[in-house]
């Protein structure tokens, strides 16, 4: 996060300390430059710096081709979120339900899909579905998006559950003492507050959904990653294409992350710096490393 939040573990340096810091700074900078030079030389030694290998990506047709991929990446991410977030909320409520069967089923679903890699679900889908019905063909879009929904519903459910739990007990007690039923209490008191707590985490969740959408590469849905694969099949500029695709992904996710962080900073100001949101975001960020 911002420099202000990174606490300072060192004193204002004295004269000797300053010299050490300057010398090490120069040494580090030189090392970084040396690393970059080595990388460039390595690229050049294998003829990967040839201008035509990079100029290709200035071609409007290629740019449009990649932009279409980005559009489908957004589409898959968005549609998956639209389905998996409500599903996640339902699962979270189910898991917190006082009905033992409901809470166990929801809990089992969440624990299962939280520990299962999405690729496994994708493979199972690719092969299991054709056997379900004769001539039943699921469009390739859903081959990607349904596994995304299944996997993300589980992590979203945990986000919602943590958010509901982060609402202060006093709020529950107050609502109960007003004679509210459980469902009214949830709808009018707890959920509105929980939503505000989880909003940044839901945005961070979009980052992992966006990352999951790269599995279009496996099911051949032409999102950005698959578009990159197609390009390499035509031009075989492997490292250039995959490097550019990677940088695009990093920029997209960086933008989403920054948005989530600024929302969170705003939320924290509003709720008098309650740390619940922060811990939550950290927990969510740490989970899906895909």
């Amino acid at each position, binding site marked *: 996060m911002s420099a202000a*939040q990174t606490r300072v573990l060192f004193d204002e340096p004295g004269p000797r300390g300053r010299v050490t810091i300057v010398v090490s700074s120069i040494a*580090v900078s030189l090392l970084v430059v040396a690393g970059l030079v080595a990388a460039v030389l390595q690229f050049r030694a*294998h003829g990967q710096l040839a201008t035509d290998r990079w100029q290709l990506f200035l071609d409007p047709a290629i740019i449009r081709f990649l932009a279409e991929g980005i559009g489908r990446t957004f589409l898959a991410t968005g549609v998956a979120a639209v389905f998996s977030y409500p599903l996640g909320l339902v699962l979270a409520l189910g898991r917190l339900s006082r009905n033992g069967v409901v809470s166990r089923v929801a809990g089992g679903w969440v624990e299962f899909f939280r520990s299962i*890699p999405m690729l496994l679900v994708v493979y*199972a889908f690719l092969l299991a579905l054709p056997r379900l019905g004769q001539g039943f063909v699921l469009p390739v879009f859903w081959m990607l998006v349904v596994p995304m929904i299944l996997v993300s519903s589980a992590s979203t459910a945990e986000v919602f559950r943590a958010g509901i739990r982060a609402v202060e007990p006093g709020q529950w007690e107050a609502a109960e003492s007003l004679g509210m039923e459980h469902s009214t209490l949830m709808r009018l008191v707890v959920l509105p507050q929980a939503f505000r707590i989880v909003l940044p985490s839901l945005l961070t969740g979009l980052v992992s959904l966006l990352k999951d959408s790269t599995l279009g590469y*496996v099911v051949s849905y032409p999102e950005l990653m698959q578009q990159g694969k197609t390009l390499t099949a035509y031009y075989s500029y492997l*490292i250039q294409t995959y490097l550019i695709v990677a940088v695009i992904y*990093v920029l997209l996710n960086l933008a989403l*992350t920054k948005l989530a962080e600024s929302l969170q900073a705003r939320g924290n100001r509003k709720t008098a710096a309650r740390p619940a949101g922060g811990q939550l975001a950290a927990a969510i960020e740490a989970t899906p*490393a895909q």
Partner: protein
Amino acid sequence: MIEILRDNAGFLAQGALVTVLLTVIGFLGASVLGTVTAIFRVSPIAPLRWVGTIYVEFFRNIPLLSLLVLITFGLPEIGLLLPLFWCGAVGLILSGSAFVCETVRSGINTVSLGQSEAARALGMSFTQQLRLIILPQAFRKMIQPMVNVFIGVLIGSSLVAAVGVSDITNVTQQLNIRYAEAVFLFLLSGGVYLLLAMGAGGVGGALERRLSRSRISSRGAK
């Protein structure tokens, strides 16, 4: 179904072994690299902090599959040929380390500032302070997040199947194609992942209980 299991027990076990190895290597490598990066990010040397920040932002935001494809198919283009297994391992280490770095950094932030001030008042250097005072206390708060990182690496390790490493997901897929028993095989290898994830959670919980027992004095000190 039992026949599939009997005939391919060795194949499946090998796949599971590759998954376990990748996860363990990825997690250990990421822990070391991530801790080093976290130290970079709190160090007094500004260029080190910048390097740490750029590193983390890049590897935290790149999709693992994109990274794996880049390593597996891109690096040979500039003459860096790694064995397939290590392409997967390196990808997992790099992406995992970014998450470890953030975990360590927020762990460091949970240690009260007075600890650092006291250490400095005793004349400890930056490295002594980190090694003897800050990190040992930070590690306690990091167990649960580190379990999450482990599970993330475990789940992420399945993506090596997409670039051709024969881990359990890849083996499952090969058997899927041969036997067309997708649901059974899915549940089987899903069970392997579930078991490993639960095992990690169990170890983390036990570790946490143990450490909280040995922390009687620090609770009152707050």
